[in-house]
């Protein structure tokens, strides 16, 4: 991949802490994460299941609240914004791709893709035109009028990618974008993401897939809610086959164990 990273960070996270509470049970999912992402970067986040990758994505994108720390996007702390402003910020600056596509089943592919444009006030005709163009770009110009249930998994994910990109967001967050796809379709989706990045799009991809991990220009490894490595994929993954820092043949899950703690003091 050949994205160009600038010197000023687009996103700067400092001391981000996130605790999940279920009754008396508390799980500290992020333990003081610091991270900087520059415009045009393709950052892959890897780590064992349950170690905080998705939580990191949610907290950095503003989908979820944090218990401590700051997340500055373009110099503004998104966690000090009220919900309405943060929502608007997401609409204008971010795009999302998820493992299970999360398309709206009652809308066609075209209608799904034009939604982010409509929500930011783009005129309907223009939104439709841009959505159609974006779907054509991901190779779905023949499937505009199809609903999600009429599309294959790969096609649905391409619709989701088109939806994430159509409003030209500053950052696109992708959470296991190939997790639900067979290897051939996954490769096609990965090619698509590469193309997107090559065009200058900032991408943060949470993945288990070492192939994706190796393909990025930067790899962040998360373990037990902490960033344990951040650098070139080649340096971090070394010779380990799964990219998660351990041999999958050894089995086992290395997530943080739930523990009972005292309630946290209010920030």
């Amino acid at each position, binding site marked *: 991949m050949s994205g160009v990273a600038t010197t000023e960070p687009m996103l700067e996270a400092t001391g981000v802490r996130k605790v999940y509470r279920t009754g008396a049970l508390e799980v500290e999912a992020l333990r003081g994460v610091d991270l900087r992402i520059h415009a045009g970067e393709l950052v892959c986040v890897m780590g064992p299941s349950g170690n905080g990758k998705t939580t990191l994505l949610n907290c950095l994108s503003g*989908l979820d609240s944090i218990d401590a720390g700051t997340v500055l996007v373009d110099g503004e702390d998104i966690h000090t914004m009220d919900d309405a402003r943060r929502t608007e910020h997401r609409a204008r600056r971010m795009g999302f791709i998820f493992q299970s596509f999360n398309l709206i089943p*009652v809308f066609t592919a075209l209608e799904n893709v034009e939604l982010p444009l409509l929500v930011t006030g783009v005129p309907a005709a223009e939104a439709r035109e841009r959505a159609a163009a974006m779907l054509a770009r991901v190779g779905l110009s023949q499937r505009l009028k199809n609903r999600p249930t009429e599309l294959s998994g790969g096609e649905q994910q391409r619709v989701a990618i088109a939806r994430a990109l159509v409003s030209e967001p500053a950052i696109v967050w992708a959470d296991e974008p190939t997790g639900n796809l067979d290897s051939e379709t996954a490769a096609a989706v990965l090619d698509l993401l590469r193309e997107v990045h090559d065009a200058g799009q900032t991408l943060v991809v949470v993945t288990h897939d070492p192939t994706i991990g190796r393909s990025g220009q930067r790899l962040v490894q998360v373990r037990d809610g902490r960033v344990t490595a951040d650098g070139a994929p080649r340096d971090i993954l070394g010779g380990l086959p799964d990219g998660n820092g351990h041999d999958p043949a050894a089995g086992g899950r290395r997530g943080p164990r739930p523990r009972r703690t005292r309630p946290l003091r209010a920030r």
Partner: protein
Amino acid sequence: MVVLAVLLGLLLLPVVVDAVRHGELRRLAIRNINRRRGEAVLVVAGSMLGTAIITSAFVVGDTLGASIRDTARTTLGPADVSVQTLDVGQLAELAARLADPPVAGTDGVLPLVIARAPVATPADAAGERRAEPHGVLVEVDFEAARRLGSDPAITGFAGAGPTPTGDEAVLTAALADHLQLGVGDTVEVYAYGTERAFRVRDVIESVGVAGFGGGGGRGVFGAAQAGARSVLVPPGTLAALRATPSGAPGPAGSAAPPTGFVLVSVEGGVYESAGRIDTVLPEVERRLQGVAGVQVTPVKQDLLEQADAVGRQFTELFSTVGGFSVIAGVLLLVNIFVMLAEERKVELGMLRAVGMKRGRLVRGFGMEGAAYATAAAVAGALVGIGVGRVIVYVTEGLFSRGDLGIDVTFRFAAEPASILTGLAIGLVISLVTVWATSLRISRLNVIAAIRDLPDPPGVSHRTRSLALGAAGVVAGGLLFAAGLAGARAGALAGLPIAAFSAIPLLARLLPRRLAVNVLCAVALVWPIAVFSVLPGVMDGADIALFVVQGVLLVAAAVTLVTVNDEAFGQLAERLSVAGRGLSMRLGLAYPLARRFRTALLLGMYALVIFTLTFMAVFSRLFAEQAPRFTEEVRAGHHLLVESNPGNPVSTEALLEQPEVEAVAPILRAFPHFTAHYQPEPMPWAVTGIDERLLAHGVPVLASRVPEYATDEEAFRAVLADPGLAVVSEFFLQRGGGPPIDRLRSGQTFTMINPASGEARELTVVGVLSADWMFTGPMVGAGGLVDLLGPQAVPTRHYVRLAAGVEPDEAGVALTGRFLANGADARSFETIIRSNLSQQEGFIGLMEGFLGLGLLIGIAGLGVVMVRAVRERRRQIGMLRAMGFPARTVRGAFLLEATFIALQGILIGVTLGLVTSYQLLANSSTFGDSDLGFLVPWAGLAVLLAVPLGASLLAAAWPAGQASRIRPAVALRIAE
């Protein structure tokens, strides 16, 4: 009841067996219920209303029945058979024939004499008096009364002391309370043109023989009067009053003579004796053979049969009207289960994939449904008792309005058998719905279910549709053929059923949407048009038929709307220009995509609103037409003056009043009648008129025989020929609603003198559209006196007032002036408005009852929205992630609820208006007269605003929940 029990057993047996034998099914059901307790409560709450409606109908029937049965205690006590004669001189002989020796099975006879007379208090210091215009004077031997039957306590005379003598009188509590009189006070009675004062020696309870007022009631509730308002006077008083007319106003000669009764008690107290009356009656009749002018009536048996009939009528009325709501409840149940199944589609698919057979899946789902249904039925039965109580309370108030003269003290009754029956019916309906829905759900495609995709259409499914369609067309055709031969339900439903069934067949030849549109249009037009196309078959349609009509119309309209709903989607798309209207786009997308579910919700709303609109039209129509109805009945007069038959107002006295310009005396009596639809003699009022009624105009006829060019000619023919009559469309009708059977011009009926048995056949020359003053048939006065003799009394006068006199003021003045005659003078418009207010009250009661159905719709919408939030949680999370504001999400849910409710309401209102217009303007279902048609704008505004507002309220909570969903949480759960 046995059929119900068997059905219930069959439906519950698999549940019980599976619960015992298949632990995994039991666990699955219990855990699914426990998993979302709040929703389980909502499901039960939404499902229980059907049972509540059915149970409340039974409770109302029980109460009406029990209240009328109670009048056996308050007006008859031990008396079971009455022997009536106008010749009071015969009484001793009649009593002797029956008592010496006693008829086997009887335990006493009691002769007594009864006369009707106004009763009043003397004027107080301010000159004010209290009066009872419908008082009763009774001569009876108190000691003999106590000996009637085996229990003095039930006679009403147990503590009444000796028979009054001299100027003493004993009052029944009903009269004493009304006049506010006590022991030692003076009471004045007016009869046969004279008056007499008595000192009140005692006040006794109005029960048993003491409450006996001689019957002579009217209409369906004729015998259902509370204990009589009587003055028990010394023997010989009535003869003395008749013999010595004084200067008091009133023609002694025209007053109704006293009536003699011999009451016969059959062994067995108040209620137990009723079953033995049939064994005693033949002997009573045998012993009275050869005595002229005697009428033997099994009064208690008649009363108890009437109690049962009225109870059944009310149960039927409320359960039939409630049928709309029950059907709405069924739609809600189906909707809930379809949603449950869709929500658990993947889970169900997995269960099938791991080897669970389809039958077991059905039973597992059925078990969960049966648990909801059982809980809902029990709760519904309890709520139904409360609803029934409210209806009874309102009905009691309505009975006291208007001119029905019903004076029944309601005794609330909820028989355990009725409650169990209501519960069982509700449960059977719910279980059938649950099992049918479970069967439908279980036919899932395993792969599609696991992947959460729609089921692919299968060849076998298409073949089944075609086969079922063909069978439906044949069945509909056969029904229609039966309809042409006279079966109303077949005429109404045959064609629409055939049309609905033909959809899969025609869809093979035409584009599907075109096929659905064409056939649904047929199914929509026919149930409205049939009343005009086949009037001979459809006249006399009952309420149940209107329920069927409503279901057919709503089914056709909802189908038409849902197949053509793309228009709404296009509208939403236009409105979402530049980001505005995104809520609407989202809000409309789901109901437009989930058509089956949307159709069920629309059906719930439309069905109930259709009926409410129908009722609102009638309510407005009657309310607005009081002036027109008044003009039709008053024949150029202004006031109707009614007086007591024992001391009627004289025509001459009325003519002497300064306000009065002209007077037409009207004879009244209560003979028996038979007609082609009423073969058993039935008591009904009759009115005898003379030339004077026609002097200033004639009552307007809805139809008449063609021989007469005008209504006046028809009336003059009635005056000239005692074999002719004018009747109303409601003559000899039982219960409410449109006339079931009626006499038409040219048909005949028979009037019978109940005392002599003499009968006369009468031919109908004209039909009145309504009978606001309970006139009964109108015949010539001369002919009436020939047949009925002194039974025909001029207790009514039509009064024409001098120019400039205000009718209601004149009415008040005349009522006061003729207090001694028990006069009640009211303007025709006041009488009609009073009766209309009662009708409106009943319509209002029915509307309130149907409001329960609306509750089902609203609760259903609430339940559906709650479940929709859960079902779409992931999608909501995604929308929020994309930057959709919380208000857009909340707005989408509210708009979705508005869209469904508004569509349902508009379908219902449109159907209601079109159907009522068609029935009123172009059919004779509601009579031959042109009732006109008025759009009830105010009623429609309420019908639009209240359900819509309530629906929005019901959707507000789930909409709020949806807007508060945190995207990361929703997506994390989903991922």
